């Protein structure tokens, strides 16, 4: 199945621990979560071995249950795919169409049931508060039994509850999908929110190195935003404005991008549209460029949050262009994107009957931290032009290139774009200025049609006039940005990066050393045995159990298990504590692997 389809990929969706959604990353497979929970609540109570036994015990039974569910779902999926991939029969007699529709409805019904079963199962079993049976008083064997039966009871209860919800018909199919998605994360999110690390109040809480936020410069930003020039108020700010954004802000964005992207010519404010966050820009862009079911090519691993952007509202799919960690012919570095790979992915998509409308690039790349050279960028754009593909370039991290030896080239810096009418650039302040809570994203496109169409969303994805004013003041203050903010931010990022990478080196963990972005992409393959996504997830949950949130590679559609993204843009204290927990988990993991190795031959 193509793109974000099919249960396998749905599972990824569940795994997603994307920066737009601070979450423990959720709930699949269930056994892993249970394990994590077990650990998180008792690692200080139970001896390690006992815990492991318990976990392994739970694991197998839940795995069966989940497998059954997934299997059921796969069946339904396949059925639906068969139905929907049939070419549209326009001349079909009405009767038959009706019949088809009816069948479709039945399928939809089945699918919803399975959906609910699965989400219910995950929800119900995924993250429960520690149950008494999990307590240290239980002996390992009996405890497992009791816990298992109780969890099954719980599952049954959950399902019957969900059935009631289902019968109530309150939500549309897509509403149910959206809701199930949110729900699966909701519990996690609540758990995280309720137990966040705080350097005074809750030192035992979760440290979140999974969400890409820059927390290193909140002092500078708070100070700047508190200055009196920020608090200007005029009636125009409280009234409806141009849907594309206030003219003053669009002008400032154009000036800002001209300067920081080193554009050869002055950028035109008419080509700027501002919306409430880059997610909104991407979602609006995907909607106006693609019809439902059409697709965008995207090199993977890549930031999974965009999946939601494209799917929740717009039903646009993403077709992965899988990159390899291994360096092969034609590539000079791991995970290198080449035109050959693009060609191949496009061909595959076309063979699958997918209509590909564009190419999505993230530069600097997330999670790799890669920065595309001028030449490669040009090649990608030429490739897109050959096939009349739009190119959406997300340059959200363009000012977070902290290594001076790395030269970032914005697409807007190019002398001439191969296909200016199909090249659309996205930027926002969330990462580069560490203000994700501002909800600001900007689109720059030469294509007036696209700009106009995206502007229609200005009403649904608009930004408060007061916020627009503050943003304008912020972007205007070049003096502060160039002399205070950027140097400080870069040196802090550099220091944090150095700290983390030294730790990783000491642990002999391979990672990509890139000098841009807020993250390190590292390889923990060595700690997985066997090297599977299941094991990757187990390790992820082991981190969670130790109150550390990282993002597993599967979230980024990485095709090789074992990769993790770690956000290093946090304050020294939590960072240090996080690395301590990180080390603990890996040491524990290694011990377990050794035990496993010893046990395996014995079993044989």
């Amino acid at each position, binding site marked *: 199945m193509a793109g974000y389809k099919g249960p396998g990929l749905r599972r990824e969706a569940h795994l997603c621990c994307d920066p737009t959604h601070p979450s423990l990353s959720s709930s699949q497979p269930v056994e892993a979560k249970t394990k994590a929970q077990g650990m998180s609540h008792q690692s200080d109570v139970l001896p390690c071995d006992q815990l492991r036994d318990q976990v392994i015990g739970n694991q197998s039974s839940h795995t069966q249950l989940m497998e059954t569910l997934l299997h059921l779902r796969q069946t339904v999926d396949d059925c639906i795919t068969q139905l929907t991939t049939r070419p549209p029969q326009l001349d079909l007699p009405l009767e038959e169409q009706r019949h088809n529709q009816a069948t479709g409805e039945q399928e939809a019904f089945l699918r919803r049931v399975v959906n609910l079963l699965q989400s219910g199962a995950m929800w119900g079993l995924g993250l429960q508060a520690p149950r008494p049976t999990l307590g240290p008083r239980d002996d390992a064997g009996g405890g497992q039994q009791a816990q298992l039966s109780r969890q099954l009871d719980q599952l049954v209860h959950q399902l019957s509850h969900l059935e009631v919800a289902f019968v109530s018909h309150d939500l549309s199919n897509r509403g149910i999908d959206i809701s199930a998605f949110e729900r699966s994360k909701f519990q996690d999110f609540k758990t995280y929110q309720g137990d966040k690390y705080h350097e005074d109040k809750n030192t035992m809480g979760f440290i979140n190195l999974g969400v890409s936020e820059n927390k290193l410069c909140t002092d500078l930003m708070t100070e700047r935003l508190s200055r009196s020039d920020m608090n200007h108020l005029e009636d125009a700010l409280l009234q409806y404005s141009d849907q594309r954004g206030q003219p003053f802000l669009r002008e400032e964005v154009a000036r800002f991008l001209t300067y920081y992207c080193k554009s050869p010519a002055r950028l035109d404010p008419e080509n700027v549209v501002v919306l409430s966050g880059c997610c909104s820009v991407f979602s609006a862009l995907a909607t106006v460029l693609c019809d439902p079911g059409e697709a965008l090519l995207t090199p993977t691993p890549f930031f999974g949050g965009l999946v939601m952007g494209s799917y929740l509202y717009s039903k646009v799919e993403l077709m992965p262009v899988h990159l390899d960690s291994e360096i092969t012919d034609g590539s000079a570095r791991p995970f290198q994107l080449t035109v050959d790979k693009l060609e191949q992915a496009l061909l595959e998509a076309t063979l699958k009957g997918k209509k590909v409308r564009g190419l999505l690039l993230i530069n600097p790349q997330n999670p790799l931290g890669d920065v595309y050279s001028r030449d490669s960028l040009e090649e990608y754009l030429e490739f897109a032009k050959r096939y009349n593909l739009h190119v959406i370039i997300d340059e959200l991290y363009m000012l977070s290139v902290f290594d001076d030896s790395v030269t970032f080239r914005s697409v807007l810096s190019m002398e001439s774009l191969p296909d200016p009418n199909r090249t659309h650039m996205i930027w926002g302040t969330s990462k580069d200025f560490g203000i994700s809570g501002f*909800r600001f994203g900007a689109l720059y496109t030469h294509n007036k049609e696209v700009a106009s169409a995206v502007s229609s969303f200005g009403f649904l994805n608009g930004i408060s006039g007061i916020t627009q004013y503050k943003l304008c003041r912020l972007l205007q203050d070049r003096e502060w940005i160039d002399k205070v903010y950027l140097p400080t931010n870069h040196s802090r990022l550099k220091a944090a990066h150095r700290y983390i990478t030294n730790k990783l080196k000491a642990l002999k963990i391979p990672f990509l050393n890139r000098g841009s972005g807020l993250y390190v992409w590292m390889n923990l393959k060595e700690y997985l045995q066997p090297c599977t996504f299941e094991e990757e997830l187990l390790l992820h949950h082991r981190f969670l159990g130790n109150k550390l949130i990282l993002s597993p590679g599967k979230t980024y559609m990485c095709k090789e298990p074992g990769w993790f993204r770690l956000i290093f843009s946090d304050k020294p204290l939590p960072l240090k504590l996080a690395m301590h927990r990180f080390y603990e988990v890996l040491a524990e993991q290694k011990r377990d692997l050794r035990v496993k190795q010893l046990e395996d031959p014995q079993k044989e």
Partner: protein
Amino acid sequence: MFALPEKESRAPSTCPGPASTQDLDSNCGDGLERECSRKPDQKLPELYGVGDPTAGFSSNSSHLSSRGGIIKWFWDSAEAGYRTYHMDEYDEDKNPSGIINLGTSENKLCFDLLSKRLSQSDMLRVEPALLQYPDWRGHLFLREEVARFLSFYCKSPAPLQAENVVVLNGCASVFSALATVLCEVGEAFLIPAPYYGAITQHVCLYGNVRLVSVYLDSEVTGPDTRPFQLTVEKLEMALQGANSQGIKVKGLILINPQNPLGDIYSPAELQNFLEFAKRHELHVMVDEVYMLSVFEESVGYRSVLSLERLPDPQRTHVMWATSKDFGMSGLRFGTLYTENRDVATAVASLCRYHGLSGLVQHQMAQLLRDRDWINQVYLPENHARLKAAHTYVAGELRALGIPFLSRGAGFFIWADLRKYLPEGSFEEERRLWRRFLDHKVLVSFGKAFECKEPGWFRLVFSDKAHRLCLGMQRVRQVLEGKSQVAEDPPACQTQEPRDRHRHAPLSAHPGECGTRNPGSTHLSTLPSLVCWLFPFKLISSWSQYGY
């Protein structure tokens, strides 16, 4: 969740429906023939109409998807009307001959109070948590404040719960998100017409959901006691009609106080409508965005949240925003209150597209918390100013002998200018609107609200006195200069709140009301696409700016 080919992907990307069978193959650029092909007034039955904002549209863009083409078309239509105004906006000093805007429903009367309040030191707090990713439903402190605020001002019998509150960037977003999570592509909501036309676009852009108009009459007939009265019978008929066309109706939208009528539903009426919805398992979205803009105390407004017992609480969703009641449409703060956790969760997960800056969330919480200021300063002053402005405009209209409807709520007067349209066509209505614009005053015409009778206009009065006077002066010039009394002039019993003002001039034209043949009103004379597009221009232009 993701994936799985769904019905949507098979469905056509435009709002589908019977109306689209009238499509021609013409493209965006050459609309000459199309205007004739599209005769909305002929195809619409009397009692209801299935909205199909995109019928007849086909995109020829090489860059946009087909839905992208439609979305762009929404924008272009908005642009054209809006551009005229914006290129020549009135400014007392810089452009005194510019266009006065009596079309956009914004309250510009209390900026002094608001600006003072929003500049107080408690508003200016900046802290790291406000700068980072929030809970997508909105910061808890704000949701708690909204719950307390609504409990108090809606006179809720029991305290409302913060858990039931979702905060978004404006009510437009609430409509969009609700449409998406409640309906499949192509399904519909019922809505009494005339209504605030931008809703058409809100539910269509992302959600691809349609509106079925429940047409209301200016004529008072049968058991009705006032013009444009909504009754359960009318709802039933519209629902049946839609069903008979194979359209699945999933909900009912009620705007209370109503826009553009200014009508207020009594608790008994509200109860009846809710019972109707419950009978048919329809969701009810109650838009109460003008709830604190009821400036006539005698009106006795009741929020749906004040009802002792909701017939179907799981399907009742209430929205409110600060745009109107606090005159801050540019602030983009709206909120959904629903007891249905599924709906709340689903809407919340769409909030990543409809988020609101943390700093603004803090300001909103501070504002809503300040009951002293709201009750003792803001509301009394705001109501007094609204009342004064209303009295002035009502007086002007009366002097012109123009019947109008106004019920002491909202920012607008729904005026009957049918006597200025000799043929009583929408074409004339548009031409009259154009004459207003040529005389530098922007108003909204009835077609933009899906009003089925040509000749109704909405005038917004919540503006500063000097602009209002100038605006009304220009209105008068147009009407006095161009007054064309029809041979068979329409008359209609319209009334103001509590029948306080009876307008004499109407009786001078004792004509029949509502006898026009709807077929005669189609747009058949103007030879360009622009004209054909006009109704949509208005829908998008004013409605966007004219909530």
